[in-house]
């Protein structure tokens, strides 16, 4: 088990001396995943809420598809995106492959189903409870949708965190469309995968520890914000 001790020591040392390469990788990871998360929420929250509030033919199929897409393997998504962004692909002219933008795109697409599916569940339940009141008040479904998103904001925080978890932990897709190119598209997870491939297990583990610690801090921040809101709302 000396590897674990090793790993913790290495993690501490890496952080302690503020290794510039590590900091660069961390910064890119955060930039990519947080951007992807924000964009995914911008789409996933309204999309999920719409599925929770509107009734239309094919809705059940859409919900099922969304749930199924939570199980979309990142590698597959990465591959499909690779083919689209590749120079011989339809969007090749944009020259996005192997750029952080491509990675954001990949994580965005991966996170949308999670945020949307979880939002759908939360909003659908609230909507069942609220539906008559809203209709009676004359609030259209679109307005109800946004009101419910607001009412459910604390519950939705967890959906958002699940989406963030998926984004920050994901390696398959960003590896394919990002290419793990040093100083350009190397993020925490691809660096970890690389060190693992090299057999540098305790370095990989150390990076993993740093990543989880980072997630923990971000989560703690979000929980604190949530708690403040709860106190304020009484």
């Amino acid at each position, binding site marked *: 088990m000396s590897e674990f001790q090793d790993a913790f020591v290495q993690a501490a040392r890496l952080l302690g001396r503020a290794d510039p390469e590590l900091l660069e990788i961390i910064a890119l990871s955060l930039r990519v995943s947080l951007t992807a998360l924000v964009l995914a929420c911008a789409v996933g929250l309204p999309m999920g809420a719409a599925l929770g509030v509107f009734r239309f033919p094919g809705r059940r199929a859409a919900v099922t598809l969304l749930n199924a897409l939570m199980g979309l393997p990142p590698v597959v998504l990465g591959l499909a995106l*690779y083919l689209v962004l*590749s*120079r*011989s692909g339809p969007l090749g002219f944009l020259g996005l*492959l*192997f750029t952080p933008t491509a990675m954001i795109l990949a994580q965005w697409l991966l996170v949308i189903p999670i945020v949307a599916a979880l939002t759908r569940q939360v909003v659908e339940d609230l909507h069942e409870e609220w539906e008559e009141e809203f209709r009676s008040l004359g609030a259209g479904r679109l307005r109800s949708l946004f009101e419910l998103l607001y009412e459910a904001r604390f519950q939705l925080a967890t959906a958002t965190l699940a989406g963030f978890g998926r984004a920050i932990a994901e390696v398959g897709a960003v*590896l*394919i469309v990002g*290419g*793990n*190119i*040093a*100083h*350009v598209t*190397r993020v925490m997870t*691809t*660096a970890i*995968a*690389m060190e*693992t*491939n*090299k*057999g*540098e*297990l305790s370095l990989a583990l150390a990076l993993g520890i740093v990543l989880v610690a980072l997630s923990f801090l971000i989560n703690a921040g979000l929980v604190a914000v949530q708690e403040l809101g709860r106190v304020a709302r009484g």
Partner: protein
Amino acid sequence: AAEAAPYIVLASTTSTRDSGLLDWLIPAFRARTGIDVRVVAVGTGRAIRLAERGDADVLLVHHRPSEEAFVRAGHGVERFEVMWNDFVVAGPREDPAGVRGLSDVAVALARIARGGHLFVSRGDESGTHKKEMELWRAAGIDPHRDWGAGPGAYRETGTGMGATLNVASELGAYVLVDRGTWISFRNRGALDLLVVGDPLLRNPYGVILVHPARHPHVKAELGQRFIDWLLSDAGQARIAAFRLEGEVLFHPVRDVDPPAAPGASSRRIGSP
């Protein structure tokens, strides 16, 4: 399926599995001995770590210095050279560095570097990556410093051969690749084979039994039978008979009569 049959775990590299060589060898070995071989295919660096920790019975990789160090440290019983294949340099069809057909790989690499052309390196301490470093040394170049167009044109992917080739084919970059992976790789795009045949590009494979003194659970007897078979006439002949897209890939270390068996091809899901 093979749950009940006796088996060994072989730690090897992706090149031997993905080229289809192991799928060609193992059934023959099993037919003769009833022993199954479970292949864990990873980079050379990790394969060696796996074996060191006792998670494999036999190691089949291609980086001689590491293999020798492995045996010296007492992790392995003895290294046997089994076969060799070769590396090649692939690159964009237009070949901006003008290296096509060169027989001296060091010269070719130096040209690519001086010209500041795109080069994609695995950067993962695999056998291939270590070979690449060796070649840069031979060319007298430090790829991280001596690059014509400055940093950015020499790119390390830190991933496997396939993923690296995917990057190279997309970027239209030069890349060092083992011939097996090259032949079986489907997503070549605009890449061509440019430099072949320099003796420096030879790539010997060694096989080592993990030392039972270090790891008592190692299936030494079964593992030794696999090694013995690989080195036997039958095994060597089987290696010689392996074909990928009609090409010879791996050369046995001993001269054997190539049998009249039909050529093999890379097996994959869905292949008949």
